């Protein structure tokens, strides 16, 4: 799949785009050339947009101090939608809004993330350029990738005995590259995954202890900023959505250690006008041995909330899969404002059982029926759910190579290794598993937009304030090379221009027939 056709803007849904649309109505088409420059403007609106730009210019020339307000205080949204952006600037200038209190957001910086910065010490190896230094190693690395792809191809074609012999060859080749970094390291994990698929398909998926998962997750959280970015961006958006409301309820689709929530609790404690009553419902797998880890985390969070005078109530919902959760378990109160928080969970619902269909649709359905004020969705920005094995394998090789690259800067060796095992599990699932066992069915933002739009959700744009905060946070404690980008109202975090994780915010579209 090539989402970046020259006549379709980055990140746009596949149905819109070039002026050769089959709708037959020229008024609906997007100007293809501007789309190539990243701007979506309907051909029928060109004149109007030009007029507004001209008017904006006149206003800016006549009032230079207003320009400074636009730059420093106004929040900008979705610059790809040029018409809306220009209009929002015009309305800013005619009715200047009271600037939001910057201190509300700056506290999130200090509270959420106290980890010291990790300075880039080793030059990065791009996932595209396969060498560590000597010519000999460069050739070995390239050969490794060749054979790896050939092996994947043979698996794709079902030629398992060929695949098996190629795996042996690959294991031999691994010895002549540096397995600690660059292509050697990534290839090692993929060879391992292919090996599991070919030799042990039944036991292919790695042992799934919830405790182990949590430990690995924690190290992944520390070693690179992807999860922190997810939590931080989500909290910002949730905080804004909760503004002015006294009863708020967060539903977390994957509580884990509840790492996301102390920052939100603290920020709510400090908000002007005082904190709301906060309910948190945390969903997580059932704990073994009668242990109730959800409750324990809830207790810790309650303790924190108490210490900052935030009225707080916690409820744990144990479910091994999200589609086992029924809305009545969440006990949503009609008077409260609901935020649904899904950090890398929705893709797990994309697998389908021939008898039941795909759980994503009923789940999106009940989410919508909760009438949430905001649904935060953070997902891996990758196309690992393609029907053909070889396509998935190739995409995953590129994606995880980039991710491993970004990890190389992290100096604490043990933590880095554990973080890598976390990633390895994902790789294994993408490469080894099929059917319902394959849960890591990542899809890119383009597809999620279509899916969520079709399920009755409308996009809530993340603005320049969220962008700036995220960028500043990254600069504080991550290696150089990470970058935040704005993508039609969503934010992505990537490594050296390759987005790896995408955050978007949604709300339920108003019902035509609302039952109040």
């Amino acid at each position, binding site marked *: 799949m090539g989402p970046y056709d*020259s006549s379709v803007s980055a990140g746009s849904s596949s149905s819109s785009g070039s002026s050769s649309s089959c709708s037959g109505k020229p008024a609906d088409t997007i100007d293809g050339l501007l789309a190539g*420059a990243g701007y979506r403007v309907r051909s029928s609106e060109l004149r109007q947009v030009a007029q507004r*730009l001209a008017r904006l210019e006149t206003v800016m*020339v006549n009032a230079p101090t207003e320009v400074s307000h*636009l730059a420093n205080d106004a929040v900008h949204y979705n610059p790809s939608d040029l018409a809306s952006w220009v209009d929002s600037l015009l309305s800013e200038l005619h009715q200047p809004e009271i600037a939001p209190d910057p201190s509300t957001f700056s506290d999130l910086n200090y509270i959420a993330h106290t980890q010291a910065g990790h300075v880039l010490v080793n*030059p990065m190896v791009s996932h595209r350029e396969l060498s560590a230094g000597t010519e000999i190693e460069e050739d070995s690395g390239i050969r490794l990738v060749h054979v790896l792809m050939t092996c994947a191809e043979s698996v794709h074609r079902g030629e398992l005995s060929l695949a098996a012999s190629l795996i042996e060859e690959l294991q031999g080749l691994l010895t002549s590259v540096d397995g600690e970094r660059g292509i050697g390291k990534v290839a090692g994990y993929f060879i391992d995954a292919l090996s599991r698929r070919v030799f042990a398909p039944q036991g292919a998926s790695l042992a799934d202890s919830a405790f182990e998962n949590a430990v690995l997750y924690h190290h992944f959280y520390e070693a690179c900023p992807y999860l922190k970015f997810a939590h931080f961006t989500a909290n910002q958006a949730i905080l804004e959505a909760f503004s002015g409301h006294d009863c708020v309820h967060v539903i977390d689709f994957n509580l884990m250690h509840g790492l996301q929530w102390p920052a939100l609790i603290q920020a709510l404690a400090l908000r002007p006008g005082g904190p709301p009553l906060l309910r948190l419902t945390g969903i997580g797998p059932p704990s073994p041995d009668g242990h109730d880890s959800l409750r324990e985390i809830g207790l810790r969070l309650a303790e924190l909330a108490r210490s900052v005078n935030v009225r707080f109530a916690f409820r744990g919902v144990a479910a091994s899969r999200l589609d086992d959760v029924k809305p009545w378990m969440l006990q949503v109160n009609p008077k409260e404002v609901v935020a649904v928080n899904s950090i890398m969970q929705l893709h797990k619902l994309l697998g389908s059982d021939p008898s039941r269909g795909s759980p994503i649709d009923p789940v999106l359905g009940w989410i919508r029926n909760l009438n949430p004020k905001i649904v935060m969705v953070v997902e891996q920005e990758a196309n690992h759910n393609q029907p053909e094995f070889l396509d998935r394998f*190739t995409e995953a090789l*590129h994606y995880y190579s980039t991710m491993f690259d970004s990890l190389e800067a992290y100096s604490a060796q043990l933590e880095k290794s554990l973080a890598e095992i976390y990633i390895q599990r994902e790789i294994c699932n993408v490469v080894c598993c099929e059917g319902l066992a394959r849960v890591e069915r990542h899809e890119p933002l383009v597809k999620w937009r279509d899916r969520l739009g079709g399920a009755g959700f409308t996009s809530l744009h993340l603005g*320049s304030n969220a962008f700036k905060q995220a960028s500043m946070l990254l600069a504080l404690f991550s290696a150089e090379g990470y970058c935040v980008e704005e993508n039609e109202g969503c934010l992505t975090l990537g490594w050296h221009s390759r*987005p790896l994780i995408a955050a978007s915010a949604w709300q339920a579209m108003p019902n035509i027939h609302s039952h109040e």
Partner: protein
Amino acid sequence: MAGSNEVNTNEAKKVVPLNTWILISNFKLAYNMLRRPDGTFNRHLAEFLERKVPANTIPVDGVYSFDVVDRATNLLNRIYRQAVDNEAQWGIEELEKPLSTTEIVPVIIFFHGGSFTHSSANSAIYDTFCRRLAGICKAVVVSVNYRRSPEHRYPCAYDDGWAALKFVHSRTWLRSGKDSKVHVYLAGDSSGGNIAHHVAVRAAESGVEVLGNILLHPMFGGQERRESEKRLDGKYFVTVQDRDWYWRAYLPEGEDRDHPACNIFGPRSLSLEGLNFPKTLAVVAGLDLSQDWQLAYVQGLENAGHGVKLLFLKQATIGFYFLPNNEHFYSLMEEIKSFVHSDC
């Protein structure tokens, strides 16, 4: 002054297609917001507003791209290449073979514009431009993500350009022809053109081969106010005042525009005579207020005994090449194509 702006908008609208006018006006207004009077720059808002695209190993219009980070400098280079016909190879980057062992495939190192301050190699406008350049000219294009001002002033951009040149020369997979070497051209628009010039000078001084320079309305200037600057000030998207801001942001603090980075053949510059300087294709837009400086540059190269071809596009404004909706774009591409293939 305020009243005359309404007239100016109409002038520009007469000479460019509507969507081009919208694109460049949008940049003009956004950039206006980002430049602060005290010389600082609102980088976060700039990055937020910048439309970027990732590289794509799936070919679009016959060209695919991928990013390479130069380990020595941590700088990103985006490479654009013609697609191979064998579909199975799309998505897999073959970094071992030369481009060709029989034909010469020109490699154009491209420095994007943005007055040293704006844009990146992965900006949508420049990604699209480089794709078109690679496809039409049947060349490999290497787009350099150099460090920008005011955070990184002179000579950072030149150092990064020099690093990119050395990087490109040392890639075996960029070699071509029976002589198996990298056939390098330097190119750039606006500040990128300025960078290309300075990198070419350094290359000539160091004996590193550059086969030609392609300068697309390059950013040059000087203390003096030239006639074109006065005549065209504010008329076609650009003002003298904004040019001054960008020079102040790029040049070392306290310097003026006669600094040799800015004023190439000015009072403080070293002579280029006797230097093994590459041939130049200089493209000047007739509605660009900086044209007198660019024309003086062309004259200066001639005086110093160096080959230069001038492509003067009388009715073109800055940025005419962003959208392929005008004759100037096609003239430009034809010229560049024959310029990089003339040695074959």
